[in-house]
Every structure is written in C-alpha cells, then in structure tokens.
C-alpha cells in the first residue's frame, strides 16, 4: 500500500509539473516572439540610423538607394486607428449603456448576439466588402477621387472592434454598485442624469480599457486595411487625409514580405515594423489589462 501511495505521489508530481509547464509556455511564447522579431530586425538598425527609420518621410524599399522611412506608415496606422476609435468608442459606449440601462430584457437578448456576430466575420470578408461594395459606393456619394481611403478602413475596423468594446464597457457598467444608482435616483435625479453623472464616471477605467484594447485591435488589423485603404505610402495631410489612400504598418508587412528577398535590408526593415507593432500592442494591452482589473471586470 505504501509503495502504491508513493507511485501515486510521483504521478501527481509528474502531472502537476507538466501542467505547470503548459502555463509557463505562455510566457515563453511571448518572449520567443519578441526575441525572433528583435533578431530579425536588428540588422536594419545597424544599417540605417533609428532616427532615419522612425522619422524618415519616404518608404521606398525597392528604389536605388532604398529608403526605409517609416513615418508615412506610422501616420497611416495612426489615421486609420484614430478614425476607428472615433466611430467605435462613442457607438460602443452608447450600445453598452443602452444594453445595460435602457433596453428591455427581451431586446437585449437579441441585441447582444447580433453585435457579437460582427466579431465572427473574418477580416478578409470585411476587406472584400469594402473593396467591392462600400468603397466605390462611398466614393460616389462623397465625390472622392478613389474608393480606397483611410476612413473606409476606420469604418470597417470600428465594426470589427465594436463587440469587444461593447462587452467590456458593459461589464464595467454592471460592476457599478446598485446602491450608487439608487442614491442618485433618491436624490431626485432622472435615470439619464444618473447614467451620465454617476454610472459612466464610475465605470471610467473599464471604458478606457475598452478603448485601449480597441486601439490594440485596430492597429494590428491587417487584411481589411490592406484591401481597402489604398496602400499609398504618403504622409496623410490634415482632415482630408482621412479620405485619401494611406498605408499602414500591418499592410506594408503583408503586402511586401512575399516579395522581399530573404535577409535583405527590406526583409529586416519589415521585421522592424513588426517589432514596433509588437511593442505598441504590448504597451496598450498591458495598460488595458491593469485598468480592466481595477474596474473589477475580471474576477480572479
């Protein structure tokens, strides 16, 4: 019996170690991704000064001499992401408030799954719809020179990010204690005054977290922007820039990695863009995670 007990204990130890290893692998994968991006990006930092990489105004990887200025790509991503946020955050927040505070229960049960569906549609399908249908139509209606432009990408990204923003914002709103609401109502405030003065401010950090995750999601999205934003590596100018073609960081990688020669400067430069994307999303996601936990949206 004692021998059997020891055999069981050994097996238990073995299983627990294997399971713990699976957990630790998640950390290892993040480190591996970072290491491989860094390793393949480093050569370009030796060839081109960092200032010229980040601040350079021209991305001409195949001309002679090649130029690897990422500023147009950075700004392109910024335009598309900013535009997406401007649409998705107000809309998502309104939907979250509507779903948790205003909508009848029946309607909420229909509304939520319908909005969730937006996240299930593959990004390449959004790109397809934008390219063939929405882009040409909008160009016609708004009298634009081309049917592929920054704001079109923003609009589609906003739809893709909407379910996540609604769901996190709704969790944050639900986490606001009922007593707070009752206090406000008891003081003679209307439901709307209670929502806007008490509930939304109390859910603030969750709402900011949702926006941050929206940034991470939008800046990293690839196929849709590749297909609908026109891919012109020019620095967007002012408000009108939203309605002109731009080129994002993700689209550049997707479009050019297939053609770049293995271990050429171009290849390394594309990994450098990947490294930047990784760092940007790492920062926004970590920040958002801290905020979500603070908002009490995640139970541990």
């Amino acid at each position: 019996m004692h021998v059997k007990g020891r055999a069981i204990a050994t097996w238990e130890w073995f299983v627990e170690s294997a399971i713990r290893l699976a957990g630790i692998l998640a950390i290892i994968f993040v480190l591996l991704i970072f290491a491989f991006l860094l390793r393949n990006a480093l050569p370009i930092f030796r060839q081109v000064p960092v200032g010229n990489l980040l601040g350079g105004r021209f991305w001409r990887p195949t001309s002679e001499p090649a130029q690897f200025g990422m500023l147009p790509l950075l700004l392109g991503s910024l335009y598309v992401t900013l535009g997406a946020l401007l649409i998705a955050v107000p809309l998502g927040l309104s939907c979250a408030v509507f779903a948790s505070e205003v909508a009848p229960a029946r309607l909420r049960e229909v509304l939520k799954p319908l909005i969730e569906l937006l996240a299930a549609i593959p990004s390449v399908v959004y790109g397809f719809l934008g390219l063939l249908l929405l882009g040409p139509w909008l160009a016609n209606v708004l009298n634009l020179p081309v049917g592929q432009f920054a704001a079109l990408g923003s609009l589609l990204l906003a739809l893709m990010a909407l379910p996540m923003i609604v769901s996190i914002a709704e969790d944050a709103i639900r986490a606001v204690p009922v007593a707070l609401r009752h206090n406000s109502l008891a003081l003679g405030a209307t439901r709307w005054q209670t929502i806007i003065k008490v509930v939304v401010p109390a859910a603030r950090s969750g709402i900011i977290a949702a926006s941050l995750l929206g940034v991470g999601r939008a800046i990293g999205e690839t196929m849709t922007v590749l297909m609908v934003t026109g891919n012109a590596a020019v620095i967007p100018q002012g408000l009108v820039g939203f309605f002109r073609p731009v080129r994002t960081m993700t689209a550049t990688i997707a479009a050019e990695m297939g053609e770049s020669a293995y271990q050429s400067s171009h290849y390394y430069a594309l990994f450098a863009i990947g490294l930047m994307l990784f760092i940007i999303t790492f920062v926004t996601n970590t920040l958002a995670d801290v905020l979500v936990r603070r908002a009490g949206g995640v139970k541990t």
Partner: protein
Amino acid sequence: MVILLATDEAKNIIRPEGEIRLETIDLDMFYDDFQAVKQISIAIPSRRITALIGPSGCGKSSFLRCLNRMNDVIEGTRVQGKVLLDGEDIYSPDTDVVQLRRRVGMVFQTPNPFPMSIYDNIAYGPRLHGVRDRTQLDEIVEKSLRSAAIWDEVKDKLHQSATDLSGGQQQRLCIARVLAVEPEIVLMDEPCSALDPTATFRIEELMTELMENYTIIIVTHNMYQASRVSQYTGFFLMGELIEYDHTVRIFENPQDQRTDDYVRGRFG
C-alpha cells in the same frame, strides 16, 4: 452585571470516558491574518456523536475542516498546534493527506452528488483506491446504500442520475458515498441545514444507527439537533472552545455563563 473572567477554562472542558483516538492540542487556525480557531484542545470519543455548536462565525466549521485537512484547499490558511489521530500528528510533513481523508470522511453543508449515476457516485471512492472488480463494487454500493438507509429508495434506479434525487436523498447518498471508502471518523458540517424537517429527521436517525461503527463529529447551528443526537457537545465562541461536556450537562447545567446564555437563546 457580573463580568465573568475565564479564570480556569480547563475545568469546563472534560475528557470523555472510553476510547479516544482523535484529539487536538492547542490548535490554532488562521485565514491570512484572521485567527478563526484559537488554542483548541479537545478529545473526541470513539463511536459516539460529538456535536459542535455556537453562533455563526464562531470557528466551529473551520475547526472541523482542520480534522481532515480540508483547509489545505483554501488559499492563505495556516495551522499551528497538533491534531493527533492514533497518536500521530496529521499535520506532520510525512502525513499522506489522501490516506488521511480516507480515514476521516466528510459530509458537507449542501448535498453535492457528482453529476453521475447513483452507482458511480458510490463507486467513486472505491474505484479511486483501486477496486475494479464488478461484483466487489456491487457489494460495496449495496452495503453503503443500506448503511445510509437509502437502498430501498434507489435500488431500482442505480444507474439514473444522482442529481435527480430529492435534497434529503442526495444528502443520504453523500453519506453513503463517504461510507463506501470505510472511514473511521465521519465529519458532518451542518449536514441538514439545506433540508426540510422530515429529511432532517431521517438523517438524525441515520446518525444514531451509524454511531455503532463510526466516530461522528457534527457541526450544527441547531441546538435541538445537537441535544437530540449527540452524547457530547462543545460550545464554540469567537474561535475558542468555551465548554465541552456531556450533552445533557451542556444543555441542562452549563458551567460557563456564556454557554448558558447561548443554549437558552439569549444571544446568537
């Protein structure tokens, strides 16, 4: 008003006659910084029913869970002092916790049958401990269900889901499940608190039957239950064992004013 000073606590804590195989010495238990159990020294008589009573939050359940180390499962718990089972400290590093829990079974507050068939619920423990033979399992299942006085009600539906039984039946099933691993001691943590009076009565009857073969410790907030079923009763207050004596004495002639107040319903 007289303020009672705990001058000689020990005189209110007796040592029961007869065989004693389980006792604690100066047992403390903490949840992080909060001390839930304070310096408990108690000897549990074999083949008797010992009831632990006291207002909620008095530490009686926490104390009970020390006896089969179920508190190990909860993060942040810490134990000091000794729990001696047959003279050996169950908190010593070379205790096999799994083996300990076979010897000291536990019935919980809410019935918690596994979502499996009645048969599989009872066979769960024996199977864990290596019983594979079908006829042997059949025997264990029948014997355990008979001991728990539920055989007649379920013998025709052994392979139906245990979760379809009534609450009272579920709790007797859980008792049968504990008996199937042949423990020496059965801990019951408010086993009737989720049951109606009829089901409660049946469990109490069952406990009295089981007393012939098992040592039973029951935590209850129901003083009538304690006085009906137990031979010894310990009164807990704020993590301390105030008084421990024959049940009759605790309820009819308690030595400590606080015990008197509690059993007469003067506070709680």
